[in-house]
């Protein structure tokens, strides 16, 4: 988790632009460009594609996400909750004699404990994902770019944020241009 790089733009200064946006036409171009940007050592940048491009993660050098840990913990909580709920309500708080059976039996408790595990874990997965991705976030500087609308259809982009420590208006633009982009534009914050 520590290595997660929150992709935010909150701390942008109004004067400075958000960053530079480069458009690509093919997966290959995107991946190749990504590798370059990665190798240049940029940290506050991201690439965009209408679908999950295999290999792009490696190309960008992303670490494994901590989502599984969240989900596991959520699931564990659910399981314990399910068991305790059944044990306490039927076994401790108001015990009934039902069909002469013991007040609490593990086999009987399994189905509900299981369902609770799944339920909690599932919420963990969705909310965890949204949380780590900083979603929902309806406003974002990139949405100002008309070009960027095709990011969800058939075009591929790389955006390097101005807030990146080694960002330099000219160098970065040059870099983006010669990694095979079809267009590079500046996106204001």
């Amino acid at each position: 988790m520590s290595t997660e790089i929150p992709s935010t733009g909150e701390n942008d200064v109004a004067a400075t632009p958000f960053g530079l946006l480069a458009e690509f036409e093919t997966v290959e171009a995107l991946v190749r460009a990504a590798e370059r940007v990665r190798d240049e050592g940029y940290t506050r940048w991201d690439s965009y594609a209408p679908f999950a491009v295999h290999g792009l993660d490696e190309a960008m050098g992303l670490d494994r996400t901590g989502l599984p840990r969240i989900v596991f913990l959520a699931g564990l909580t659910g399981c314990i909750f399910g068991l305790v709920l059944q044990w306490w309500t039927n076994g401790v708080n108001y015990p009934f004699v039902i069909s002469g059976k013991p007040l609490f039996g593990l086999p009987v408790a399994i189905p509900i404990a299981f369902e609770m595990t799944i339920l909690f874990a599932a919420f963990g997965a969705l909310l965890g994902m949204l949380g780590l991705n900083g979603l929902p976030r309806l406003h974002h500087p990139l949405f100002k770019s008309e070009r960027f609308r095709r990011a969800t259809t058939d075009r591929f982009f790389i955006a390097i944020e101005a807030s990146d420590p080694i960002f330099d208006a000219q160098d970065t633009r040059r870099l983006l241009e010669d990694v095979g982009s079809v267009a590079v534009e500046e996106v204001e914050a």
Partner: protein
Amino acid sequence: MIRDGSPNRFLFPKWTNLLRPGIVIAAVGGLVYVTVIVTFGFSPKTINVGYKPQQPVPFSHRLHAGELGMDCRYCHNTVERTARAAIPPTQTCMNCHASVRTKSEKLTPVFQSYATGMPVEWVRVHDLPDYVYFNHSIHVDRGVPCVACHGRIDTMDEVRQVQPLSMGWCLDCHRAPEKYLRPPALVTKMDWQPDGDQMALGRQLRKTYHINPSTDCITCHR
């Protein structure tokens, strides 16, 4: 699609990014709110406690049970024998009022009833649902004081409900009667206080009288 110059896209204003914290707060806050409303708003404590209907005769328990110090059982004389602590017949009132306050305006319904034989129509204050079968005699017999359920009647001018009379409330006592038990002889003593520790006394009484109240459903529901 986009290529055929469609209008500029709608940009959500920046403040919409407060949506995320907003949702979280709303979710948590809403949960708390509902819980609070349900636990306190709908509980019998809120709904039923304090119910104080208007009675045909402004009979004052404070005066009779309190100042005059009449025993509950003088009027509610069936409480030790039967399930109900019967509302006394007009007769009982007249035992005294034949000679006391015979001119009182307030008592006209009583005098009329006595004369005509038509009953005085009191309004029930402590009204359990009809599927609850509560038996006064056994509780009184085991040393559950009147005050435990009816409160300090001897301080009320008009009787009002002071306990929720909810199932959970009944269970509290059925699970731990020692909190309320006292020597059966003293059940009607409204202001009685144990010399020592109530719990100690209660536990001791439980032992001597073998008081193990049942929490089976059929104890109260049939």
